[in-house]
């Protein structure tokens, strides 16, 4: 199979290139920030960062057939309708990482509200079921120090966690507050930020925003530690309003507000040593203590237009801004539902958000219970979710770190969003990323493919498998995903008309049928139907 060998060498090259790139970046890191100051307030994280979860070895991956029992979840309200198979599939894809085999079917008939609350109100620590992640040689991943193993470490949680919505929200917050290790240049800092997202993803957005604003990775990525009273740096000031809390082009702030907010945010600093940046602190000596003025857009919230504010005020001023609630609920809605909310829904979500003290969970539950979530049009599945979903469908654990570059080629490497506005969720699919998804699917199937040319003594593939049975077997391989009738008909025609379906030559019967089986699995996994949910 010359083609295979050749293609592989190309893949090796891709990976080597990517790794070389990572090394080049490491070299570029320069010594910086050696200011010494006396008046320091050492940053206290809102929550202590837990070490990366270590999980004891466990039996092979079997996803739970129903959400974990949740002690905090109330009884479903009377009249919560039973969930259908289509609804369960959509919920599992959009609020998690796709169903494991049989998981969606097992939910059918349970009250919708109970299923949703099972996702939004998990109890205790997440459990990860199945073998721990390893790289090609069976060695444990080293997410702090090896290029790409941060990606695979998180992908593993997406595949195995029994709290999939926690991982999905962490994934959304990574896009919302998009920081790239390209600039942060510390997998440890990125993973600490990741843990921050994970631990605060259902809580108050105000608390989260405070934690993010003082988070080391963010302070590096948007130059908070370069923002000093004599030389204000506008980077964080602009993006905290434009991308994180208020939105551009809607009259929420002016260019002058960006300049003033940069002054409000002055004061953060860090130390540099051979181990990298550390001791991120708010240093009052670097903070601009003079009065700042914000435009009337902020004033309508009842806040004074002038004040001697600091970074915590900056966050509060954004969260209390009259245009923040609409920004927040619309942005969160957009991650789950492609059609915009109608005016009444928008108003009620905003009310819910402000009356609940900026509760992310309150808005999230309303979105996941909204009819538009289930009745509205499809969403394109992001590359990482697609990857995790395929692995979950066939019950394959993380046993290679190839997923990192495969996913990067498909348009999404975790911890490396393209810029501070995150990934473009509206255009995942084009001729480059579609080819990359094919490649990803071929890697997913590569350990369980049917060998057309077995050695002497090894079992041969069926010589008699009929086209319909071949299709059914391939569907079963993926846990019987949902295909449209048109797509099914198209794939079924391939099964009938390809050489395996028409050949009468004896020696071709088994190898062509094995190839047909492999082709059918690829066609199902890469069908347009599997790219959306």
């Amino acid at each position, binding site marked *: 199979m010359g083609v295979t060998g050749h293609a592989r060498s*190309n893949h090796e090259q891709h990976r080597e290139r990517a790794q070389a790139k990572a090394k080049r970046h490491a070299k570029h890191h320069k010594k910086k920030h050696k200011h010494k100051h006396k008046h320091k307030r050492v940053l206290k994280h809102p929550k202590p960062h837990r070490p990366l979860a270590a999980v004891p070895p466990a039996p092979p991956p079997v996803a739970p057939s129903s959400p974990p029992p949740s002690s905090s979840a109330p009884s479903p309200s009377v009249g919560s309708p039973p969930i259908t198979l289509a609804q369960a599939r959509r919920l599992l894809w959009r609020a998690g990482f796709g169903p494991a085999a049989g998981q969606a079917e097992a939910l059918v008939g349970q009250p919708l509200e109970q299923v949703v609350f099972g996702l939004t109100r998990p109890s205790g620590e997440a459990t990860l079921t199945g073998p721990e992640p390893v790289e090609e040689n069976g060695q444990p991943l080293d997410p702090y120090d090896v290029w790409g193993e941060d990606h695979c470490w998180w992908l593993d949680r997406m595949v195995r966690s029994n709290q999939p919505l926690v991982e999905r929200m962490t994934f959304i917050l990574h896009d919302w507050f998009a920081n790239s290790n390209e600039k942060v240049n510390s997998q440890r800092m990125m993973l600490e930020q990741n843990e921050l997202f994970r631990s605060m993803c259902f809580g108050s957005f105000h608390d989260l925003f405070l934690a993010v604003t003082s988070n080391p990775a963010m302070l590096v990525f948007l130059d908070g530690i370069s923002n000093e009273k004599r030389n204000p740096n506008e980077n964080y000031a602009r993006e905290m309003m434009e991308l994180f809390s208020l939105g551009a082009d809607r009259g929420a702030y002016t260019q002058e507000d960006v300049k003033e907010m940069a002054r409000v945010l002055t004061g953060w600093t860090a130390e540099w040593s051979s181990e990298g940046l550390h001791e991120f602190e708010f240093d009052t000596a670097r903070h601009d203590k003079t009065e700042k003025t914000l435009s009337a857009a902020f004033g309508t919230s009842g806040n004074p237009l002038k004040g001697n504010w600091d970074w915590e005020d900056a966050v509060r001023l954004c969260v209390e801004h009259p245009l923040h609630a609409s920004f927040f609920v619309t942005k969160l809605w957009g991650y789950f539902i492609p059609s915009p909310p109608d005016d009444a829904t928008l108003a009620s979500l905003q009310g819910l958000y402000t009356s609940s003290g900026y509760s992310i969970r309150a808005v999230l539950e309303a979105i996941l219970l909204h009819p538009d979530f289930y009745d509205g049009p499809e969403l394109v599945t992001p590359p990482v979710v697609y990857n995790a979903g395929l692995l979950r469908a066939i019950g394959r654990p993380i046993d290679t770190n190839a997923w990192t570059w495969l996913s990067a080629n498909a348009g999404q490497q975790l911890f490396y969003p393209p810029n501070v506005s995150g990934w473009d969720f509206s255009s995942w699919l084009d001729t480059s990323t579609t080819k990359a998804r094919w490649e990803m699917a071929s890697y997913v199937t590569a350990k369980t493919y049917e060998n057309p040319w077995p050695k002497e003594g090894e079992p041969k593939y069926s010589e008699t498998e009929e086209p319909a049975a071949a299709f059914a077997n391939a569907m079963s391989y993926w846990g019987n995903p949902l295909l449209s009738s048109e797509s099914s008909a198209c794939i079924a*025609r391939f099964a009938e008309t390809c050489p395996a379906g028409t050949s009468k030559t004896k020696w071709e019967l088994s190898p062509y049928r094995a190839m047909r089986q492999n082709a059918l699995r690829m066609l199902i996994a890469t069908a347009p*139907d599997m790219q959306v949910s």
Partner: protein
Amino acid sequence: MARSCSCNDFNRAALLRRGAAVAGKGLPNIEPGMPMPAGTGLDRRTFLLASAGAALSVYGASMLSPRHFEEGIAEAAGASGPNQPVLVSIFMEGGWDALSVLAPVGEEGNTYETLRPKLSLEAKEALEKGTGKTFVEDPRLMWHPSAAGLAELHEEGKVTAFPAIGYEPQDESHFTSRHYWEVGQLDTNARTGWMGRYLDLPGVGEPNNPLQGLSLDYSLAPALATEKMPVAAVSSPADYTMWAEGLGSPVIEPALEAFGALGALSAPSPAYAQARAASYDTDLVLNKMASFVKSEKESGDKSAVTYPSGDFAERLAVLAAMLHTEMPIKCASLNAVGSYDTHSEEAGTLATNLAQTVTAVVAFQRDLEARGLDQRVLIQLWSEFGRRPRENGSGTDHGAGGNAFLIGTRASGKMVGEFPGLTNLDENENVVRTSDFRGMYCSLLEQWFQTPAGLVIPEAASFERPVLVK
């Protein structure tokens, strides 16, 4: 939302809705599977969407793929000839610092030093060492040492410089400003790129040729987003093949045909349509690229020019080879090396990224010259804005008037708009623009593509047309 918008899903959705309407009412007497003659009012994709599923079932065992319909239609549409003009658009993401690329070290009154006490030191040093060449059209300005290759091409009359290009009112958001440049208008709701609209024009775009608008990247450049015509993103053109373990000839060929056929089926939603169109176009590109990939591997087409290392240079090298083999490319798009959003540590970051970008671009131009392709290719370097004249410590914040360059043997070589100086900044303390990017687009359309700009750029009549081509 502030995301950059290529928004194919919306376009495809509109297309699909139209397709359904036509299939239902427009031409009811077309039988399922009947090949559609060219020029009967339906575009190729609409026709396929309306009929492909039925066509396949009618032809059954022969597996007549959508591709077979195209051949005839493609001939009618006319293939791209080898003399078609090509535009290669290179985006310097993040807002590159025009005041470092062309540093006004010679402006009277030490204004540059005052505004940039740190960054001007490097420029001064380059001036003294002679590594920074004077910009011959305005001796106040000095090329960044990393842009020495551009200085050389400029002296050969192959660079048209825009020392302060922009628009008013300047939006300092990366995403809004870049969107304006991408769509060729100041409209946050626009959904097609300016090059995409050019490719959508009747007589320009070809319905079976996704390579006409080619992103050499992992995803499609928004400036190439079309409404009607297919366009492509190809991250590594010499490697555009699809395979899978345990899947070889003679099964993989019909499997890939089925993959393409899945893309031609109807779609009930924009997301579905995006997925279908991507599969369909991927299959088209696969077929278009097959011959190129084969010739690359077998003939080992060697360039006379040595390119620097790196993905960006490799992509330009492959682009030159593709143009050499007469691949039907009209507009190509790439992202330059690195990010130019230098809020901190500007001096080092800019020098590195600029050097890698410029050396690759110069190699590409020399390659085009060696291959005799230089008469038909123009290269555009652009960025969403320039940066603030006053530095912020070790970097600079977002600004207004910035740099753009057109490079090519047929570039006019005459500066467009003057450098306005640092003493009369605008109300936000930014460089005042002296040319408008929409004027540049209008001139490119008219002088390079021989196309009335009003068909592509809204309010085209209101923009001055600089001379860009000789």
